[in-house]
């Protein structure tokens, strides 16, 4: 099927396509979401929700070669929405749950790594997203632009500003 043709996907094909996408991308998307959300369980919820959303929209994806970018952008949007919700919740904190796991409970980070990750999370959302997609997912500027729905120029700006801000934060902390 030519890449630019609309995808005529019947239910069985949709299931098969979703299964293939799951095999190929699930693990890396969970890791990406953990970087953003710092909780594995929450990250998995977000990625699963993204797959469920994608299943309903597969018919509307015009270019099959872009499905993975589309899936990644759903994950980024859902993660951003969860982060926003969490920030609101932090302003109105509930009673602390004593048995709740702490941030990054599933990840062993060295102190210097923890310092970088904390600094990264203190950046504005767009800068942080660009840095994560560039330096963790190793995406090109064009791919980042497609994932975030912004121009390549904006990606360049956010990435360089993000890197400068991150350097500054790390210098201060030293």
């Amino acid at each position: 099927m030519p890449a630019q043709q609309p995808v005529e996907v019947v239910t069985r094909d949709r299931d098969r396509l979703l299964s293939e996408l799951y095999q190929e991308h699930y693990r890396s998307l969970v890791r990406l979401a953990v970087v953003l959300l710092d909780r594995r369980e929450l990250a998995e919820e977000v990625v699963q929700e993204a797959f469920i959303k994608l299943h309903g929209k597969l018919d509307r994806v015009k270019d099959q070669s872009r499905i993975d970018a589309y899936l990644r952008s759903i994950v980024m949007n859902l993660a951003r929405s969860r982060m926003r919700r969490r920030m609101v919740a932090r302003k109105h904190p509930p009673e602390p749950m004593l048995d709740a796991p702490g941030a990054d409970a599933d990840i062993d980070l060295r102190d210097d790594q923890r310092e970088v990750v904390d600094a990264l999370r203190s950046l504005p959302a767009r800068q942080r997203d660009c840095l994560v997609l560039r330096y963790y997912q190793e995406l090109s500027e064009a791919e980042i632009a497609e994932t975030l729905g912004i121009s390549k120029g904006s990606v360049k700006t956010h990435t360089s500003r993000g890197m400068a801000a991150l350097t500054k934060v790390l210098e201060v902390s030293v």
Partner: protein
Amino acid sequence: MTDNERNTEDRLRDALSAYEQVEPAGDAWGKIRAGVNAKQTKRRTVFWSSLGLAGAAAAVVAVIGFAAVRSGDDGERVVSNPPTIPRVSSRSRTRASSAATTRPVATRASSRKPVGRSVPTSRRPPSLWRKTGPSFSVAG
């Protein structure tokens, strides 16, 4: 890019590489399948509910339309040869009597007087005498 930024870049790559150790739980595909099925079931339910509602609405519209058409069709039948002439009786009651027999046709005439070309002759069942051309017709 400054040396510091290059150093930050290396540190960032190193820190993010630590997330390669994250392993998802094993039952994720089952949860996704369950979620997809639940969404499809919900969508189907919404579809059939909407269809049912649309059907019910169409039925109501049809009933109302039918009733409106029926009410417009007042079963008018022309009384021919010879027409009766509504008259107001001495008790101010409208009475229609046959010209042929001179006997009253509408015995339960209302007390209302003829209005224009129409003469109400009873309230129940609604009955109306109308002048249509040279003859009168009765709506029953």
